[in-house]
């Protein structure tokens, strides 16, 4: 029986549609989410099924409608707030960090904020510095939020369904370059728990810890490495918070060499945390320092040859891993 394949975008749409059918309090709020189905067409068809009361177009007011999401979540709804580009989370930081993340704690556990923010990350779309950032490190830094980074259509569907059912504010980052990526996605109602890493490929010589679309890059590099006689394990934490430290550390202990791949800035970013966790947790097993690979520490340039130089590629990961394993 051939497995059904969906694109990443379709998997997200299916998760939303299933949850909206299951629970009448789930609604979508954001810019051009209804008839337009977002610029990436991820939401096409939802307003037709659920109506404009549940798939709600907004003005260009990210702070305002995020705040409305928080209040609605506190009072009985399960809003999925859509922030078109991850670069615009800058406008929502107060509502997300000073409000959503803290309401439960500050109220001594009396109010909850079961809300999801869906947004994007990722460069190389020739969109320049204000439409290409991967800012998930900020939210990962903030207690009270959970942060999800799906890397396959399968994970996207299962993790989004879990995020919607979670009673906390969850930020769900989608790499916009992955929307057309295809992969097997079961039709049934499965969920994937938050905080459980996934070993996307087993290997013995080196661990590539990778998030979001960097998982695809790591898998590509792992194939290249295989031909060069290096067996790479690819581990996807899937959520940066909660973080499945155990799986990451165990893989590092097994292989004793680690590269961390994340498309955000490495400095003070997700790669720094994961590197620190592994450097401490696998301290006695590592044969080499943990290496971080991420966006170059520059605003993302528009010019294609420059932009391409800012992100890790299968080739650069391949070379770094080979060198680390002494095969270069």
């Amino acid at each position, binding site marked *: 029986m051939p497995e059904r394949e969906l694109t990443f975008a379709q998997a997200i749409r299916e998760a939303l549609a299933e949850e909206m059918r299951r629970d009448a309090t789930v609604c979508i709020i954001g810019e051009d989410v209804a008839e337009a189905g977002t610029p990436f067409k991820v939401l096409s068809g939802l307003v037709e099924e659920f109506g404009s009361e549940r798939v709600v177009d907004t003005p260009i007011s990210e*702070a*305002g409608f995020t705040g409305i999401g928080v209040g609605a*979540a*506190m009072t009985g709804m399960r809003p999925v707030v859509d922030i078109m580009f991850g670069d615009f989370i800058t406008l929502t930081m107060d509502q997300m960090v000073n*409000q959503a993340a803290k309401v439960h704690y500050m109220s*001594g556990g009396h109010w909850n904020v079961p809300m999801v923010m869906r947004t994007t990350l990722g460069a190389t779309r020739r969109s320049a510095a204000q439409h290409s950032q991967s800012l998930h490190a900020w939210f990962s830094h903030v207690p009270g939020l959970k942060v999800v980074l799906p890397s396959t259509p399968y994970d996207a569907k299962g993790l989004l369904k879990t995020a919607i059912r979670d009673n906390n504010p969850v930020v769900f980052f989608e790499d916009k370059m992955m929307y057309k990526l295809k992969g097997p996605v079961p039709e049934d109602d499965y969920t994937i728990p938050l905080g459980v890493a996934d070993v996307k490929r087993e290997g013995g010589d080196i661990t590539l810890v990778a998030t979001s679309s960097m998982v695809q890059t790591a898998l590509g590099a792992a194939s290249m490495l295989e031909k060069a006689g290096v067996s790479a394990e690819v581990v996807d934490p899937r959520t940066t918070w909660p973080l499945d430290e155990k799986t990451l550390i165990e893989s590092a202990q097994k292989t004793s060499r680690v590269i961390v791949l994340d498309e955000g800035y490495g400095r003070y970013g997700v790669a720094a945390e994961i590197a620190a966790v592994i450097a401490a947790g696998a301290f006695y097993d590592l044969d080499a320092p943990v290496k971080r690979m991420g966006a170059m520490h520059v605003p993302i340039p528009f010019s294609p040859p420059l932009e391409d130089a800012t992100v890790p590629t299968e080739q650069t990961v391949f070379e770094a891993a080979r060198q680390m394993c002494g095969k270069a």
Partner: protein
Amino acid sequence: MSVTASNPGDLAARSAAPVTEQQKWLHAYRQMVSIRLFEEQVNELYIRALMPGLAHLYSGEEAVAVGICEALRRDDYITSTHRGHGHCLAKGASPDRMFAELLGKEAGYCRGKGGSMHIADPATGNLGANAIVGGSVGIATGAAFAAKRLRTDRVAVCFFGEGALGQGSLYEVMNLAQLWKLPVIYVCENNLYNEYTHFSETTAGTILARATAFGIEATSVDGQDVRKVNEVASRLIQRARKGEGPSFLQADTYRFSGHHVGDISREYYRSKQEESLWKTERDPIKLHAAWLIAQRFADSASLDKTAAEIRNEMIAAVKFAVEAPYPSVKEVDQHVYA
């Protein structure tokens, strides 16, 4: 304990039951006095160095919170501010658990985790005070969004000081509330000062036009007159409940004390003369007392008796809070996630 028995929210909760005019306005009086005497104790706690941190007193502004909350149902929502004790009490919070919160005790509304600026209480529809100026405008509007979607016929009242007119998110949500005809009332408590700066130095144009620009019905009211506040609030709340959309109420008022309990020397930003004028001529409690007496709803002695009773309740509530235990330190990492 007895303080809970006099829970100021009770009447609001029973608002379906018939009350006479007299009962209604005596209750409003009781509520205003409760707030005033609550704040008196807060200041005491600060002076006696029993309260951690600072607090922003609501004294002088009581008619606003009380006039409005007396027109709300217990299950309607409010959001409040850093100067939030009055809103919380007016919506029905118990002084004992409030004091406990101010002292960081486990018996507090937030188990001590929130403090003065974060009192929240699902039982009275209190979505929480907020220490970010303008920080709750989205939350209140979102509660109205949910009320409309869930067809609960609840309304949400968003209290904020005129300083919050400086926050852009207010305009974002007012636009949305009007587009979506949400049952939310934006209440701007204009007490003339943003901290230590007169609002005329921070506010161009007029306050009401900030709302009418979005097509929102906007009115101003004398915030020292509890009956006028109640009257206009009742109208706006009814309007919202009927699905006629959001409104904006500017309540002109004055804080009798400093910006916070520690703001003692304040002549560099406002004169003693101005303060004493408001205290003698425009005290909402005195004004309402005079009216009650003129209507023969009460006499001076009975009002004094009420105040004395309430003061005793407040003292008992303080005692309760002072003696209450802190939360266990183990709680520190509880309630981060639901």
